[in-house]
C-alpha cells in the first residue's frame, strides 16, 4: 500500500492505524536521529514510541497548515524532556521558550564521545572535529549536529530545541565560531 500523504493523513485522523503507520514510517529515521541527540541511543527507541503514540492520540487536532515533520519534532522534544526529567528525578518545571537557565537539554548526553566504531581509521580532520565538538557547550553542539549532521531546517531545529528561529541562527553562528576557534587553537 502506498497512498498519497494527504489521503493517508485523513485516514489516520479517522482512526486508521495502518494509514498512520504508512504515513509516519518514512519519518521514523529522522525522529530516531533527533531522539538520539536528545536522550542518547539507548533510550531513543522509547522516545520514538512515546512520540508516535502521542502523535497518534493528537493527530485529529493536527492543523493542516503546520508541517507534519516539525509538529512531530516538537512532540519528540517534549517526550525527550519527559525522559530527561524522570532520569534526573528533579521536580518538573515548565520550560520557557527562550529560557536557557533551566533547560534540561543543556545536560545532553555527549554522543560525540560514545559513537560506535571508534576503532575505525578515520581522517585526521574528522577526529579533530569530533574532539572539538565534544568541547563545545551542549546547546551549540546540538545546533551544529541538527543542522549539519541531521540536515534539519531552521524551523525543525527550533521545534526540537524549543527556541525561536532567531535563537537557532544565533546558536549556529556562535557554534560555528567557537568550533572554528577550538580547531584553530588545536592546529
Amino acid at each position, binding site marked *: 500500500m502506498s497512498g498519497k500523504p494527504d489521503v493517508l493523513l485523513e485516514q489516520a485522523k479517522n*482512526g486508521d492505524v495502518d494509514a498512520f503507520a504508512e504515513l509516519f*514510517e518514512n519519518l521514523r529515521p529522522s525522529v530516531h536521529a533527533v531522539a538520539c541527540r536528545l536522550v542518547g541511543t539507548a533510550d531513543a527507541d522509547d522516545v520514538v514510541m512515546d512520540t508516535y*503514540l502521542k502523535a497518534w492520540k493528537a493527530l*485529529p*487536532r493536527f492543523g493542516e497548515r503546520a508541517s507534519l515533520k516539525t509538529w512531530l519534532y516538537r512532540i519528540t522534544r517534549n517526550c525527550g524532556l519527559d525522559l530527561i526529567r524522570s532520569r534526573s528525578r528533579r521536580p518538573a518545571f515548565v520550560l520557557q521558550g527562550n529560557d536557557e537557565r533551566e533547560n534540561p537539554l543543556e545536560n545532553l548526553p555527549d554522543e560525540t564521545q560514545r559513537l560506535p566504531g571508534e576503532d575505525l581509521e578515520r*581522517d585526521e580532520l574528522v577526529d579533530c572535529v569530533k574532539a572539538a565538538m565534544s568541547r563545545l557547550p551542549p546547546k551549540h553542539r546540538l545546533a551544529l*549536529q541538527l543542522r549539519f549532521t541531521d540536515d534539519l531546517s531552521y524551523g525543525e531545529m527550533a521545534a526540537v530545541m524549543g527556541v525561536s528561529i532567531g535563537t537557532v541562527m544565533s546558536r549556529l553562528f556562535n557554534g560555528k565560531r567557537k568550533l572554528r576557534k577550538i580547531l584553530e587553537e588545536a592546529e
Partner: protein
Amino acid sequence: MSRLPWRKIETSLRTERPESGMKPADAFWSDFKARARLCNQDSPVGSVRVPMFLRWGLATTCAAALLAVVVTQGGLGSTEGGSHIKSLEVVASHSAVMIIEDEPTESTILWIVDMSLDRGEST
C-alpha cells in the same frame, strides 16, 4: 595561522551521524499498534459547541483579565519578548545576512556582511 574552510568542517560533521540502532519496522509497528489500541484519539478541534451564554461569559472574563494586564503592565507587547525581525529584503549587494539575538538584553542585531553601495535599487 591558516583559516580552516568551513566547508571542510561541515563535511566532517556530516560523518558524525550516530549508528542508527533503530528498531526494525515490523517490530516497531506491531508494538505500536498494540499500544495504540489502548489509547483513544482526541476529538478534532471545533466539534464541541459551546453554549452562547458560556461564550459571552468567557469573552467577558478574558476581556477583563486582559484589561487588567493592560492597565497594570502599561500595555501589551511592551514587556514580553524582545524586538525582532518579521521580514527582510536586502536590495544592496552583500555576501551574507546574520541575525544575532542577544538573550540577556532581548535585542536583535541584523548584520549585513560585505554590503556594497555600488548596487541598489534607484528610486
